[in-house]
Each structure stands twice: as structure tokens, then as C-alpha cells.
């Protein structure tokens, strides 16, 4: 398999202590990779470096054989904290259509094809019925689906999600990850999560980030790995719901 993303010896700091140190990572085409680690361990920073929103202090990154600033066009990105004001006057459909920027024509409005693609991804993410609603009237789960639809509207080769289910309940979390599993049939997926136990059920490989990066297959994740990653004991409660 060819590497969609290649991270080579990347070190990064925001001007203070080193956040990421000598990180190597290859993400294969069609892979479903989970990125886990403790808070402030550098997970989101790694994602932002791959997106070209940050520049590595040393080392290099290639996305789809290009510089991240160029390659980010093939990425659909779902941020952890949406940076926009929730009361911005924009509908769900207009938000999703913004995902067509960069693929559609530069001047004027959206084409019929853009509208068609936006409708398809809204059906896929089950938000078609709320297409005319304003963002500030949506629940956390609905907003997450809208952001996912916006990312999908660009027909990305890679889908990157930063803690997509951080504020959602367990059922919504399962729904979103179920959808991601389906989307993995046509896109490489990288998902950042704090919940190593939960994502292990969906991803094929886990990258453990805590300043450095170590990759494991999901089968190799055991108590020792988790203890090393989080720097202490982690309580694992095995349970099921009837």
C-alpha cells in the first residue's frame, strides 16, 4: 500500500518545551488510524502539522506526495472545537456547501454538481431534514454531523477528525464511529481520541502520542502499553449494556 501521509523525524515546539520529538509515521491508503494519548501529549498538534496549519521545527511531512499546505486540499477536517461563533447566520446546507470551496469554480455561486454532492453527504450523515436550520439551533451531535458532512463535501481522500465525539453520549459516539467505519471504504481515516478502549473497536492501528510516537496494532494494546502511555495506572472497567 502507498503512504497517503508520511511524517519524517518531525520535532515541534510552540516556542517553549518540545511538544513532539522525532516523530515518524506512515499512514497507508485506506487505513483507519487512531491517535491516542494523554492531554497535552501532542495529538492535536500532530494533526495540525499534517494539515499544514503548523510548520515542523525540524523534519518533514508529505500529504499525498505534496507539502501539507498543498496536500491539505485532499483532506476533510473535522476540528475538536469549531472556531466559529455558533450564532453566525448560516444554515446547515450553506455550511456543508462551504466544503466545496477549493474544488468548485472560483467565481460566482455553487454549481448544480456542488448542490448534488452536498445533498448526498447530508443524506449520508442523516442531516438532510435539518438542512434549513441555523447552527445555533442544533444539538452537539447534530453539529458534529454537519461538520463531518462539510468535510465529506470536498470528496476527500483523507478524513481527519480531532476528538469528534468528545462532548457526545455513548450512543452518539457509536453512531459516529459506525459511520466512520463505513466511510473508511472510500477514504483513509485518522481520528484523534482520548478514549483508547472505545476506538480500538473501530481502528486498525493505534498511534500512541505523548511527545514521542509509537504505533501498535489494536490487538497489541494491553495494560502495559496504556500504563506507559498515560504514565500511571488506568482503570479499565469491563461492562456491557443489556
Amino acid at each position, binding site marked *: 500500500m502507498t503512504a497517503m501521509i508520511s511524517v519524517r523525524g518531525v520535532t515541534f515546539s510552540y516556542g517553549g518545551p518540545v511538544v513532539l520529538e522525532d516523530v515518524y509515521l506512515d499512514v497507508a491508503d485506506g487505513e483507519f488510524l487512531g491517535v491516542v494519548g494523554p492531554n497535552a501529549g501532542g495529538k492535536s498538534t500532530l494533526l495540525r502539522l499534517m*494539515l*499544514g*496549519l503548523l510548520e515542523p521545527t525540524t523534519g518533514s511531512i508529505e500529504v499525498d506526495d505534496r507539502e501539507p499546505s498543498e496536500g*491539505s*486540499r485532499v*483532506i476533510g*477536517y473535522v*476540528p475538536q472545537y*469549531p*472556531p*466559529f*461563533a455558533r450564532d*453566525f*447566520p*448560516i*444554515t446547515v446546507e*450553506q*455550511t456543508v*456547501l*462551504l*466544503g466545496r*470551496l*477549493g474544488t*468548485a469554480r*472560483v*467565481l*460566482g*455561486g*455553487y454549481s448544480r454538481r456542488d448542490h448534488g454532492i452536498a445533498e448526498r453527504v447530508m443524506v449520508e450523515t442523516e442531516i438532510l431534514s435539518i438542512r*434549513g436550520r*441555523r447552527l445555533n439551533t442544533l444539538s452537539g451531535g447534530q453539529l458534529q454531523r454537519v461538520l463531518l458532512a*462539510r468535510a465529506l463535501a*470536498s470528496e476527500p481522500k483523507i478524513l481527519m477528525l480531532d476528538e469528534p465525539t468528545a462532548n457526545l453520549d455513548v450512543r452518539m459516539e457509536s453512531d459516529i464511529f459506525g459511520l466512520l467505519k463505513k466511510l473508511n471504504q472510500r477514504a483513509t481515516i485518522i481520528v484523534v481520541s482520548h478514549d483508547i478502549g472505545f476506538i480500538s473497536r473501530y481502528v486498525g492501528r493505534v498511534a500512541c502520542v505523548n511527545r514521542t510516537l509509537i504505533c501498535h496494532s489494536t490487538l497489541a494494546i494491553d495494560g502495559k502499553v496504556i500504563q506507559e502511555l498515560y504514565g500511571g495506572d488506568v482503570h479499565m472497567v469491563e461492562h456491557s449494556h443489556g
Partner: protein
Amino acid sequence: MEFLQSLTQHVFLQHALLAGVLASIGCGVMGSYVVVKRIGFLAGGMAHAVLGGMGAAFFFGAEPMYGALIAAIMVAVLIGWVTLGGRQQEDTLIGAMWAVGMAAGILFISQTPGYQVDLMTYLFGNILLVTSQDLWLMMALDILLLLLVLLYFRQFLAVAFDEEFARLRGVPVALFYMMLLCLVAVSVVLLIKIVGLILVIALLTLPAAIASQYVHTVGRMMIVATVLGALFCVFGLAVSYQPDLPAGATIILVAGVAYLLSTLLTSFRQRYRTQVTTTR
């Protein structure tokens, strides 16, 4: 009634009315961006700093409106450069440009030999002094503004809504942000003749703020804000005409009262809806 009669007889009143409508296009379209992007302070700084350009133009014997336009664009680029660079104390820098621009303008005007211009005309505007040359300039600026917004509506929306996402989609965010600020600067110039540079910010934001209470998209907000802006100008002009009140200040008061009433109405409406929902 007297206003309507005078309107048919006096060219200066017809000019004033047309100027109000032309200025409303700028205030409706760009005011919507100012409100949703929350750059009211920045636009206020731009409006005040423009006095430097007007004063300089007056000093060198040029048309003050052209001086205002050049100064507004220069200040927009400077403010854009400061904001995009993420420099610290951005508000201090904008405040400094605000004050320095005004101070420079006052110095230029005070040092201009001969007849001393009435500073109040620049500060508070005088819609009744609009010339046909002003109208042509306003029309040209409106056409430029509408053309750019129609052509790049999606890019401006993306930059106003979510800069990071726009950047990832390959939109040149810095370029569009600068263009946005320059178009706000153009709107400021459009409004200076009507309400003067001190009151510009009110006409730039109040119609758009009222519109945002009733419509769900930026496009509709622009249309509603333009209509409201035109209504405020015409109504303010009519109210001020008979008792010979300053037209600019009257227009702003009309807009201010409308905003207050609309905010109260929206607040009551929301409270009523919440009550209905909880009692069900």
C-alpha cells in the same frame, strides 16, 4: 407632507435622498460582514482615522472625499496587516491609529490657509450638501462593492465564518480578509457624507444587527439591512427637514430607536417561545 412637496422642488433634497439610498447599499452589504465578523471596533477605528486623509486632501486643495477614500484604504491595509500578523495589543494599535488619524486631520485643517472648513460637516456629515459629483462617486463605489461581493460571495462567507477551514480549502484568507477590510473602508467613505465619520459605525452596524435578529443567512441579512438603511435615511431626512435638525444625527437616532425596539421585541418573542415550550 412639506418634505414631500420640497422633494419635488429642490434638487439638493433629491440628491440627499439618492445619497441615502446609495449609502444604504454599502451599509447593508458590508455592515453585515462587520456584524457577523465582529469587527465593529476595527471599522470604527478605520472611520475615525479617515479624517487624516480628508484633512490632508483639504490642505493640498484636493477633493476631501478622495482623500477619505485613499486614507480609508491605507488604514484598512494597515489594520489588516496588524490583525493578520496576530500581533499583540491589536486593540491598542487600532486605538492609536484611530486617534492619530483624527489628530492629523485636525492639524491639516487648522493649517489650511484661507476659509476654515466647518469641521462639524466632516465629523457629523451633511446629507444636504451632497453634490452630483459625490453621487457619481458613491454609485461607482457601490457598483465595485456589489460586483466583488457577488463574484466572491462564498469566499467572503468562508473567511467571515471559519478562517481556518477556508485556509484548508485553499482560499487565500489573507487576500480576502484584506479585500473585506478595504470594502468596509469603501463603505465608510460612502457613509461619511451622510452621517459624518463619528456616526458612521452606527449606520454600518445597526441595520445589519436588526436584520440578524430576523433572518438566517448572510445574504438575506444584506438585503434586509440595505432596505432598513434606506428607510432610516429617508425617514431621518424627512423628520429632520421641517424643524431643521441635523439630518445625520436624526438618521442615527432613528436607527438607534429601531434597534432598541427590535431587540426588545426579539427578547419578548424568545421569552414567549420558551414559556410555550416549557408549558407543553
